[in-house]
């Protein structure tokens, strides 16, 4: 279950204009590079090609940055697990947390030995990636 901002303005006109101008200039640089190669100016061609590729990379990066910012507006609540344990026979039942649960609360009867079971733990599990400095 994740939630997102309902009406978030993800792109501004100014931002789109910059992206489009950069793309247009990059294409222009590619044309220039093509012309330069045709007349035998290989070094000029290389430089225009470099400008074109850089411009294109910059505009792509800008679009991806905005997408990342939009994604950061979502958050997912963690899953909380309740463990119910029979103190007599050790029977264990793990289920999702329900309102009213608390640690050391007596709950239903044990299906094996008919003794009252008790909530032994309530916690959330996080699967974290291994950190280099952790």
């Amino acid at each position: 279950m994740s939630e997102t901002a309902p009406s978030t303005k993800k792109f501004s006109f100014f931002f789109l204009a910059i992206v489009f101008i950069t793309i247009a200039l990059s294409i222009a640089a590619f044309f220039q590079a093509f012309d330069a190669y045709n007349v035998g100016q290989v070094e000029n061609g290389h430089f225009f090609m470099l400008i074109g590729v850089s411009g294109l990379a910059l505009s792509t990066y800008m679009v991806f940055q905005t997408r990342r910012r939009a994604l950061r507006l979502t958050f997912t609540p963690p899953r909380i697990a309740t463990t119910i344990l029979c103190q007599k026979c050790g029977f264990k039942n793990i289920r999702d947390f329900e309102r009213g649960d608390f640690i050391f609360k007596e709950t239903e009867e044990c299906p094996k030995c008919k003794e009252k079971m008790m909530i032994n733990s309530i916690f959330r599990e996080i699967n974290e990636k291994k950190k280099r400095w952790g």
Partner: protein
Amino acid sequence: MIPEVSQLFPQDNILGWIIQITWLAFFVVFMFYGQRIQMYVMLREVQSSLLRLKLIRDKGRKTTITTINELGKPKEDPTAKVDQFLEYIAIAPQNMDPSGIVWKLEHILDVRDTRFKDEVKLMAPEADETQINNLENTLEAALALNVIYKVIRHFYLLGKKTLSLYIIMQIQMVLPLVMKEAEAFASALKAFSSGQPIGDGAGALVAARLMLGHRKRKIAKDVVMATVPLEGRTAYVLKAEGPGGNVGKPGEAMKHIIEENGGKIATIIAIDAAQKLEGEKPGEVAEGVGVAIGGPGVEQYKVEETVLKYKIPVNAVIIKEDIGDAVSPMRKEIFDAVDVAIERIKRLILERTKKGDSLIIAGIGNTIGIGQ
């Protein structure tokens, strides 16, 4: 073999002209407007975080109102009362003459607590004592989110109005920490509204494990105590009364036990959750000396005063976690650390006390979702 710049942008074709002009314009714009552009970038970053804060704040407010309606079954819509509550303030006592300020602060905190509880009872007439405590905690988390949102909005609007780089820069620099705190409170709000145990309750859980199966009695406001035989010693184990969201007055309780025993307490062991540094693992257990009681300091002061009078050594066992973990539903690593902390306590008792001695074991922290 680098060609001349003029060769790079030949002026005999229109594309060359465009690139040349753009190239020059780029330099001119950055030379004169570089700082302003940087400022707008920062403002945009703050604006995006502000939007997220607003989303978190509104969601928190909505959750609070839904929980009050579900648990309290009020006859009228509690929205207006909740909105009024979110603007609540508590003014700290004047500190020009610091003598006696602890008791003044305690009085203000007591009044605030009573007022909060009364307001919650009015909002949720059908809620029981545990639910009232949980609702009070929920409202406090919603209040904290509202304050964070309003402070960031204040600096954002002030920065926009004055176009001062320094106002915008200082808020942009602390923003990651503020966002982390806001997310922690959002998580706390969910935990409080459902009554889930939080990371801060690690100390209370240690005490609850030790006192399980023993007779309990109320020793101070919202604090329960059990006399537990442990390693041939008599341990007075105390914690806040659960399972509702409560921190109680552990300082008051410890003072009472010490006075009751005429100061004949061999040692005090306080267990609390403590802020970990980045890079440390959550759930690491550390030992030390001193009164491990967080919060505004009133309870810590009371214990320090009493132990000084009777020269009682004070030991601390802390379970490390960050601010996010402290107010979010308890994570498994912290839950597992409880067993480690109990082993440390037993070792401390064997090393620091003799057979037949009396000692105090205090589990500090919010006991929400933890019974006894």
